[in-house]
């Protein structure tokens, strides 16, 4: 009973709720992972349209890892965190997508434009741009060890 009492909802303790998850490199697993965005988003009462935006950002990050990273472990590692910057600040949902793949230099990735997409014949190349547009903050670190995308959206 004492134990139960200490488990009230809220952000007491570590100040965070963190759920980590590992998915295989396989089709549709990115959609299976989005269920966790919905669950964590609902946990902080995030509006559904914002949850949808985080879902799509996660989908894009996962399919990049599936398609480009050539991961050594055939897995993608996800971490979901809800928290606040300050006591009375807004809740956020943060998603980390980590692959142990070949890495890339995101500073030299060409930025897509609608014009190039339509007249130029290069239709792909929008994943990172979509992630940046839909999330409030995005940090990409990459190297020989792989790639980590850390993205956050406030409620």
């Amino acid at each position, binding site marked *: 009973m004492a134990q139960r009492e200490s488990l009230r909802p809220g952000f007491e303790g570590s100040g965070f709720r963190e759920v980590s998850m590992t998915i295989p490199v396989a089709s549709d697993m990115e959609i299976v992972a989005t269920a966790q965005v919905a669950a964590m988003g609902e946990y902080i009462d995030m509006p559904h349209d914002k949850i949808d935006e985080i879902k799509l950002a996660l989908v894009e990050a996962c399919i990049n890892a599936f398609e480009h990273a050539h991961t050594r472990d055939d897995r993608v590692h996800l971490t979901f965190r809800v928290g606040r910057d300050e006591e009375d600040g807004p809740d956020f949902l943060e998603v980390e997508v980590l692959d142990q793949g070949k890495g890339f230099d995101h500073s030299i990735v060409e930025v897509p434009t609608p014009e190039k997409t339509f007249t130029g014949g290069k*239709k792909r190349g929008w994943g990172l741009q979509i992630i940046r547009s839909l999330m409030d903050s995005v940090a990409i670190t990459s190297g020989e060890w792989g790639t980590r995308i850390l993205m956050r959206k406030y409620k």
Partner: protein
Amino acid sequence: MSESCKIVVERRGDVAIFWTDGYINNQGGEEIARQAYAQLDAGARALVLNLEKTRIVNSIGISILIEVLEKVMDRKGVLAFCNLTPTIDKTFRIMGLAQYAAIYPSQEQALQAVAATG
């Protein structure tokens, strides 16, 4: 697998209406393209894509929809979308699809608009 997108097509005169249900990824996009080209070959002038039951279209799916749009424009046809979620609408605008294809809130409005172009 239940994640894959289901597509129902109905032909009304020279307009073909597509209802999608589920996630539009590369496979879903390619299936829409296949059926869209079949409709164009069978004389359809306008395509209306009702995405009411789709909550996620990934960037690969959208890039395939852009190829469909270009093919429709080559043939002087019309492509219209309707019933997009706010997130899909936003993504279509980011990628510029909204500059070349018309987006309507409801199927009725989409059908009226494409009829007016006929």
